[in-house]
């Protein structure tokens, strides 16, 4: 499928999904659950643009995500601040603008971290991102304007722009983000940029020698990936209505955004989507006690995610997509052998 038609198909799919969900989701809870799954689609796709395409692992999804969330919290308090300081009543900032700004702030963070560490071996970038979460959390905890360690309450606007409840609005925005990020991932995959990324992943030294501007491409990937993570985090304050450092920097974000692409398959855009839908749904079901008969505590979901991550990394490093392609190739091989025997 050409890029243009893919975008159209994805947009059509998104619109159909929104329309269908408005009819089929009888309970508001479904919007809450679907929001989380969509959020993970954005996060894992964003992670995969850097991790899967260029081979640089980011363990700091939590930091980028939380930066997006906290930039929204700051913007949310902005009208009150300008009124107190300048006596001008400014209208509240619309959420799509907040998402854009959250994306820019996180993108700059990605660019900065990448610039300082990407000239070295990939391991150092991974370690720096791992420590980044702790540091950004330290900054937020010490920042009183956004509530410090106590957290901050965010009151949702009374009416939602698209009709229906506010949660439906959040859900629709997240669906749009998911469609956009998947579209971006697929477009990159088939572009010169994607070829450059793949060259870096396969052999960075050879790519450099072959004239690929490796540092610049890596910085593009970190910035883009960070920006999408920040955008995924931006609506979070309105989703949870109470934002605090412990829950917004939860390690679960980092683990899920690594585990989902690894389990789904890192080399194509489909992998992270499969991983996110699969793991996201399992965790949502687990957290509402779908497996209640088995008496599983919610933390147990995360244990399963971690164990699946280890298992897949050892046994099926190319994820579900890799398993499927291997199976297809085997079948195609077997069919070809049969055909050859018949012909002979």
């Amino acid at each position, binding site marked *: 499928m050409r890029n243009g038609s893919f975008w159209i198909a994805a947009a059509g799919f998104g619109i159909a999904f929104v329309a269908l969900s408005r009819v089929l989701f009888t309970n508001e809870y479904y919007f809450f659950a679907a929001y989380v799954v969509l959020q993970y689609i954005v996060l894992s796709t964003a992670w995969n643009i850097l*991790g899967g395409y260029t*081979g640089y*692992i980011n*363990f700091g999804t939590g930091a980028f995500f939380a930066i997006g969330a906290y930039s929204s919290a700051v913007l949310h308090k902005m009208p009150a601040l300008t009124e107190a300081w300048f006596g001008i009543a400014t209208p509240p900032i619309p959420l799509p603008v907040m998402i854009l700004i959250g994306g820019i702030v996180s993108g700059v963070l990605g660019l900065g971290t990448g610039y*300082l*560490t990407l000239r*070295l071996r*990939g*391991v*150092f970038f*991974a*370690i*720096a991102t*791992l*420590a*980044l*979460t*702790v*540091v950004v959390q*330290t*900054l937020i*905890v*010490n920042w009183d304007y956004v509530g410090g360690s106590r957290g901050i309450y965010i009151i949702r606007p009374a009416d939602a722009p698209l009709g229906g409840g506010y949660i439906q609005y959040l859900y629709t925005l997240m669906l749009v983000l998911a469609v956009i990020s998947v579209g971006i991932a697929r477009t990159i995959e088939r572009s010169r940029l994607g070829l450059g990324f793949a060259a870096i992943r396969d052999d960075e030294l050879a790519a450099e020698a072959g004239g690929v501007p490796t540092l610049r491409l890596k910085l593009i990937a970190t910035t883009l990936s960070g920006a999408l993570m920040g955008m995924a985090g931006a609506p979070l304050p309105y989703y949870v209505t109470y934002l605090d450092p412990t829950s917004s920097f939860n*390690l679960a974000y980092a*683990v899920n955004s*690594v*585990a989902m692409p*690894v389990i789904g398959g*890192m080399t194509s855009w489909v992998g992270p989507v499969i991983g996110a839908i699969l793991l996201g749904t399992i965790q949502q079901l687990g957290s509402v006690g779908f497996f209640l008969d088995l008496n599983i*505590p919610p*933390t*147990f979901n*995360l*244990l399963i995610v*971690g*164990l699946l*991550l*280890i298992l897949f*990394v*050892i046994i099926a*490093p190319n994820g579900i997509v890799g398993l499927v392609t291997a199976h297809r190739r085997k079948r195609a091989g077997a069919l070809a052998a049969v055909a050859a025997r018949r012909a002979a």
Partner: protein
Amino acid sequence: MAVSLDLLVDALVAGILLGGFYAAVTVGVTISFGMLDIANIAQPAFILLGSYAAYIVTSYVRIDPILVGFIMTPVFYVIGMVTYRLYYYAFESRGEQGIQGLAFFFGLLFVAEVSLVLVFGVDYRFVEAPYIGPSIHLWVFDLPLRMLIPCVVSLVMVGLLQLYLTRSFIGRAILAVSQDPLALQLMAASPTRIKQIAFGISIATCALAGTFLIVIQPVEPSIGRDYIGRIFAICVLGGMTSIPGMVAASMLIGIVESITATFTGPSWAPAVAFGFLLATLAVRPSGLLGRQ
């Protein structure tokens, strides 16, 4: 802010004691990451396992927690060897140690943390020992025994490891594998076997480091994360492969953290190590004492 000399000296001494403890926490990573090139980001998880081992044993038997660390060391050595075997077969032998190996250790780190939460909950756990509480008063500063004893034992352990690595046959083989695995193979020694021993040692140090941790402060499962940035900052700052460099870097980070905590409040201390890590990576990736 008026910087009083007493306060500064106190912070300096506390920092040196903290640095001694950091040396024990980091020496394992200096061996695994620095010498063997295995980015074991799950090291803090193994250290926490050491802490919880001390907690479990001391809650049943009246025994000194640091002694438990010594007793558990062989157990951790075996755990380390098994982990390396798994790592070798799953990644190194396939030449996939980069992304896959990192994801593997990240998974281990996370699974360990979640398992500890499931078993022990998120409550802080602590141990009891006669030296937790009292302190020796010298001139203008206090030497809290709960810091002094881990610091001394840690420096002895790190010193012995340095002697072992530079004087013994196996130790020198480990240094050799860190320099040139192929050359080692040509000398008819198996790099894999040497690496297995070395990785075992690196995990074995977690038994003692973990008991130091729980002696110094109460622990809960997520505390390990705070140490990742610190451990790797020290390892990189120390020049990756050099144990003396690592000790110097531990002292430096310990002192700067302690001074930061004294003068700006303890909530800023975790950012110190990260600042050092980023600055080192950006300016001088070979570390303090590293060869350029």
